[in-house]
């Protein structure tokens, strides 16, 4: 062993002004000292960060131009503007888009400002249309990462990892309806299986795993991604309680996602560097591609199609409106506009100011789903109830929305204070999103598709009054001292369907000789053998203050008669099943 004392300091200078330093030390092993050097460096590349500013300016110019010119399809306009003059800003579709389709919407739900919302979303076909392989099976797996992050991974055919994303979601929870704002049930992982066929995604399974007393258990989750956002974070919904969360306000506030639309860009500059890329796992010369995105407000809901109107059978002042259900997300309601004047070319902003154009809003939260209905036939069974539509066996109630599933269309029974039978109306319908936006009907915009179009979302219609007054009750007779017969009956106040009678015009009294027998209540059998006496309400001496009507039958000679009385309204609607006596 040789003790080595301080040997000295050697300094040298290289072109980066780095100084090396030697320190000797007392040592009983092979190490006799330490040499230290500052590893500072300088590196250079032919490149400028100015690219970012240039791209931003070009992008902003395109956005401003497309919005200023009120372009019909802003998204398409921006794409066009950013791809001209030799530029190519389009991105290639990639497998992992399936994952981002899901995680982008999940993040949007997480970032909603308010709480106690039900987020509703589904997969769209975000770019994933690999025609070479039309059938693909994906699986998204969510696991708790470290707080407050969860990890989302996309697999194909259960094992090939296509993408990973980390989301600030706190922890994975699921909930039933009762305890949605109370306790949280922790999950270990969530698995969502999606089958894509010809670019159309179908969720075949969504379930979660969790530990219950150290035993692994699973629970089925809502496949349409109803997710409850509470103070604690987001909670996936137990499939068994899905229907409770689907209920409309005030029970649930449902937010359809996404609320904005995005465009992603991949701007190519032609400049190249040597770099590694995980897509092919190689280091090679590559073009610098700038990836960025913009978010735009969702376009207003597209114009409604297949709009049709029919008379609401055996009902007054109402119409059956039918239209095709649109698959686009975010439609909160439909607006029906009607007026006796033509408004097909009137801008929506002016329509809203015009008091002559009436508006009815139809929320689509919870339509009554029906399989089959014949809108051209209905019958009363029994009376004093609305007419029941054939094939459905139930009445179509006023101001209710129905969804005819096999035909994928809505039917709404319009019955508004200002809507009257026998009036020629212009009727239009629009879909409205949660920001109360709808088509602008601005014909000054070139090629504007958001307009009223006859036969698609605008029509002329007039409904009929075919509802007779209800059956006469308490029909009786009095014989005067002069032997003349006086008929008495109660003033009818209801229509045949049980609604209030407001257009009673008079009564028809049918009579013919009756040979034998006591008083008999017979079914209607009024035929040509009957004589008919038509009287007005005033002739019967009844009114709202005098509820008993009466009429002295001077026409009758001596003998027994079969007599029937039926009420009729302004449109001469009369129920044939009349009150009768002998």
């Amino acid at each position, binding site marked *: 062993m040789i003790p080595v004392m301080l040997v000295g300091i050697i300094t040298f200078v290289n072109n980066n002004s780095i100084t090396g330093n030697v320190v000797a030390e007392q040592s009983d092993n092979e190490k*006799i000292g330490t*040499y230290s050097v500052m590893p500072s460096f300088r590196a250079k590349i032919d490149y400028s*960060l100015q690219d970012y500013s240039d791209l931003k300016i070009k992008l*902003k110019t395109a956005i401003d131009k497309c919005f200023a010119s009120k372009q019909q399809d802003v998204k398409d306009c921006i794409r066009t503007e950013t791809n001209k003059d030799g530029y190519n800003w389009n991105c290639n579709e990639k497998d992992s888009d399936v994952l981002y389709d899901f995680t982008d919407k999940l993040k949007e739900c997480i970032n909603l400002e308010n709480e106690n919302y039900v987020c509703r979303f589904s997969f769209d076909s975000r770019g994933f249309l690999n025609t070479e392989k039309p059938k693909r099976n994906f699986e998204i797996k969510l696991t708790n990462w*470290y707080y407050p992050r969860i990890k989302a991974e996309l697999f194909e055919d259960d094992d090939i990892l296509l993408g990973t994303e980390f989301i600030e979601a706190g922890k994975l929870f699921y909930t039933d309806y009762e305890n949605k704002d109370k306790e949280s049930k922790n999950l270990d992982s969530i698995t969502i299986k999606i089958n894509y066929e010809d670019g159309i995604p179908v969720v075949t399974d969504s379930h979660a795993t969790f530990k219950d007393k150290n035993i692994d258990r699973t629970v089925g989750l809502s496949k349409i991604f109803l997710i409850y956002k509470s103070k604690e974070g987001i909670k996936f919904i137990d499939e068994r309680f899905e229907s409770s969360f689907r209920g409309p306000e005030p029970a649930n506030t449902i937010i359809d996602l996404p609320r904005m639309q995005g465009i992603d860009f991949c701007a190519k500059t032609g400049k190249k560097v040597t770099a590694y890329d995980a897509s092919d796992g190689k280091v090679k010369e590559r073009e610098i591609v700038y990836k960025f995105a913009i978010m735009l407000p969702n376009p207003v809901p597209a114009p409604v199609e297949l709009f049709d109107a029919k008379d609401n059978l055996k009902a007054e002042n109402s119409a059956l409106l039918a239209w095709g259900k649109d698959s686009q997300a975010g439609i909160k309601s439909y607006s029906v506009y009607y007026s006796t004047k033509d408004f097909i070319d009137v801008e929506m902003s002016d329509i809203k100011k015009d008091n002559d154009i009436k508006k009815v809003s139809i929320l689509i939260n919870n339509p009554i789903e029906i399989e089959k209905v014949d809108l051209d036939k209905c019958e009363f069974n029994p009376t004093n109830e609305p007419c029941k539509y054939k094939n459905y066996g139930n009445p179509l109630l006023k101001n209710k929305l129905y969804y005819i599933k096999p035909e994928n269309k809505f039917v709404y029974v319009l019955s508004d204070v200002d809507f009257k039978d026998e009036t020629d109306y212009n009727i239009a319908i629009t879909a409205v999103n949660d920001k109360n936006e709808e088509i602008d009907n601005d014909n000054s915009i070139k090629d504007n598709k958001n307009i009223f179009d006859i036969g698609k979302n605008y029509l002329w219609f007039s409904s009929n009054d075919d509802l007779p007054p209800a059956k006469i009750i308490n029909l009786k007779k009095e014989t005067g001292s002069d032997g003349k017969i006086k008929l008495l009956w109660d003033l009818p106040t209801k229509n045949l369907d049980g609604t209030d009678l407001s257009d009673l015009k008079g009564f028809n009294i049918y009579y013919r000789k009756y040979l034998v027998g006591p008083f008999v209540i017979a079914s209607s059998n009024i035929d040509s053998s009957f004589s008919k006496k038509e009287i007005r309400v005033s002739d019967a001496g009844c009114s709202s203050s005098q509820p008993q009507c009466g009429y002295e039958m001077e026409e009758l000679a001596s003998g027994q008669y079969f007599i029937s009385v039926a009420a009729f309204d302004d449109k001469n609607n009369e129920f044939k099943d009349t009150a009768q006596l002998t």
Partner: protein
Amino acid sequence: MLRRNKKGIGLEWYMLIVAVFIGFTTFFVYHFSGQKIMDNFIGDYQFSILRSVQESEKTLFYVDQSAQYSLEQSVYDLANSGGVSEIEISDEENFAGYECGKYNDAYVWYQVIKKDGKYDAQECFDEKSAETNLAYTFNRNLDNYLVSYPGNIPTDNYKYEFKNNLEIIGLAALPVYINIFKKEIPEDFSTEAREIKPKPLDAKQLDKDTTKNSEGFRDFTGTDLCAKGSRCVLKENAFQQLVKAQDAAVKKGISLEVYSAYRSSEQQQALWNGDTPEKYADRYKDPTVRIKYVCDPKGGEIKCPHLSGNVVDIRLKGKTTKTMNSAEWNILYSIMTSADSNKQPLWVKYSNEPWHFECCNTPRYSRAIEKGVTSIV
């Protein structure tokens, strides 16, 4: 009569001189053989120093090349992420994410909103931040290169300056240390040498490889317990707890690796001030916002437990926080919280960060012991 040859007489003299020379040489050789007065030759240590200088030159060359590659890679990566770089792991629970988020994995530059019937394109991305973000991305890429070097080059060690079109200057804060050995140690490029094999700690060797200072801190940078490129310093007690945890890990066939430990208040202040590649002060100018992502050193050891020297950020050797799966986090947790001879946990875990453990009566450790738990917020 015998005649004398004069030439023969001359030869005899020559023979005599040679014999004397050989005799003396033999004497000296035999006389001094078996006696060693020096185990090296003159200038041997100077050669050792020169070898270290050569080693340092290699290291500097490696750093220079790494910087060049990292710069190209970073320009490519940053463009791919739209000029945005998110800090994935920070001191605080909050993820220092990008405010406007992403669409289809691309960062959003503009959000167009409709207000009072008018459209307004709100700017999300400030192109001036591209330089800061390039530095952060560059630092991450450079660190990946540096930890791959056979020697130990400090990571997260640079202050960056940019010059136009486009030059980056990295000013190192800490030097690279190269040991000077008596003898040249051949470089071992075999893969076997780089395999991660758990091995019991040799207390004597550990003592030699680490340094203790007068304030009771133990510097174990460069040892098997410290991630390559990281600077690892702990209070002596904490270090001993770590050694015990490593012993427990070895019994399970694994090894632990600390990648962050004691942080001086100057280092924490540098983080807070934005003097590190994260540039917290540039990202979050408002201190009330910044404090959500990085702890203010004014808060002391309670708010910034790494200042205590009793805290480690730790993982299994050969893994990163991203590649650790939940089973591995569980194993780490079980090892770190295993009981010592006093039936107390060696360390307790901060519930929200599976890599963060504290020991030795930090406020969090004391609270956990009081509550009888080994994981606590």
